[in-house]
């Protein structure tokens, strides 16, 4: 229960960072998707039943603080969890490099999915969309790196 509450607080805090109007920290129109990266962290290091409820709650809160259609981000969070849990049986994400690669690639995938669902991809040339997605994914990966690096050196959450 303590782990669940700690992770929930962490996720809610990252959503707060994502929603802040700090334009001079991040380039225009680029918002790092820290909550997505956090979900990947939870999927890898918190394989308990509470992670599914966490994905649901964080997805709902993120939708409320964005103009995203209700239910979409919840589905995305649950899908990420499912994908990583299934993939974990085949390949391990034990090293920092594999974890950050996963964050980078999933961020690109989810960004394109959201831009496609909202039809932004259809209305704008690829030359505008691709750099934006790449910058956002790179920024997300760099910002979440300390969390993964810290946990790799100091694993403090027991599995189960």
């Amino acid at each position, binding site marked *: 229960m303590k782990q669940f509450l700690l992770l929930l607080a962490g996720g809610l805090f990252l959503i707060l960072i994502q929603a802040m109007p700090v334009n001079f920290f991040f380039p225009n129109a680029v918002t790092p998707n820290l909550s997505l990266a956090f979900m990947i962290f939870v999927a890898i290091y918190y394989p308990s039943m509470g992670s599914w409820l966490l994905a649901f709650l964080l997805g709902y809160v993120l939708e409320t603080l964005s*103009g995203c*259609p209700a*239910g*979409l*981000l919840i589905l995305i969070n649950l899908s990420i969890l499912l994908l990583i849990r299934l993939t974990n049986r085949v390949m391990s994400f034990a090293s920092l490099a594999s974890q950050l690669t996963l964050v980078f690639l999933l961020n690109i995938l989810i960004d394109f999915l959201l*831009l496609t669902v909202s039809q932004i991809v259809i209305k704008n040339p690829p030359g505008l969309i691709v750099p934006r997605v790449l910058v956002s994914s790179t920024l997300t990966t760099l910002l979440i790196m300390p969390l993964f690096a810290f946990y790799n050196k100091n694993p403090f959450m027991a599995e189960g």
Partner: protein
Amino acid sequence: MSSFFRKYQLLIIVAFLIGLAFTIYSSNLKATSETSFLRRAIMDTYAPPLRAASFFFTGIKDFWNNYVFLFHLQRENSELRKSLDLLTENTVQMKELLLENERLRKLLSLKERSSARLISTEIIARDAIGGLKTIMINKGARDLIEKDQAVVTHRGVVGRCIEVSSNTSRVLLITDINSSVDALVQRTRSRGIVEGRGTSLCELKYVANTEDVMIGDLVVTAGLCGIFPKGLPIGTVSRIEQNNFGLFQYIELKPSVDLNKLEEVSILLPAGD
């Protein structure tokens, strides 16, 4: 039964959560006028920390601009003085035109235009998902804010309120892909619809190929949709492409308001509120 549930506990819970997410998504497809109680509660809960963060970072930015970045102030000061002189001259001319307009309207017995009230508010959050264009402001139902009220600055149109809680509201910017505003080109009165593209630009759609539109033309609200009064600046034409085979021109607009640097906006309350 209980052994079945224990055996497939994880599967049942995951299936339930996915089903619930689909239910929420499909219920969202119906157009409803009310924001749900849970969403309002989350918006109101996040408002104080967002307000505090906004105050903190605005303070840092102000300190930097006012005390550290001084060497630009001298030049900026003289440029602003020149702009002020020009604007004062324009204001005098506008005032004369306004008075003449009122006299002529009285002569023609036209109904007097009622003036709307403005409520100033600060932006406390931007959209948590980068591709979408919404912002959160620190005024809500308690301050008489309602859904579909116009949001503006002195430079022009910003957007409209789409969600209102007790103390906060969500504003859909004109650059959002879901935004559309009826508009007309100020110079030629050609009508169209300004739609967002999900980037920092907008598009003026449904303007026929035969209409006269030039780069630099100002596009203003047409006042037909009942949300924005007539004549508010939306943007200037930045690119035009004429299609030999299609009916309409492709017209790109640069918004009059720099939506990436917004800190404060005003809500337009209808007259009588």
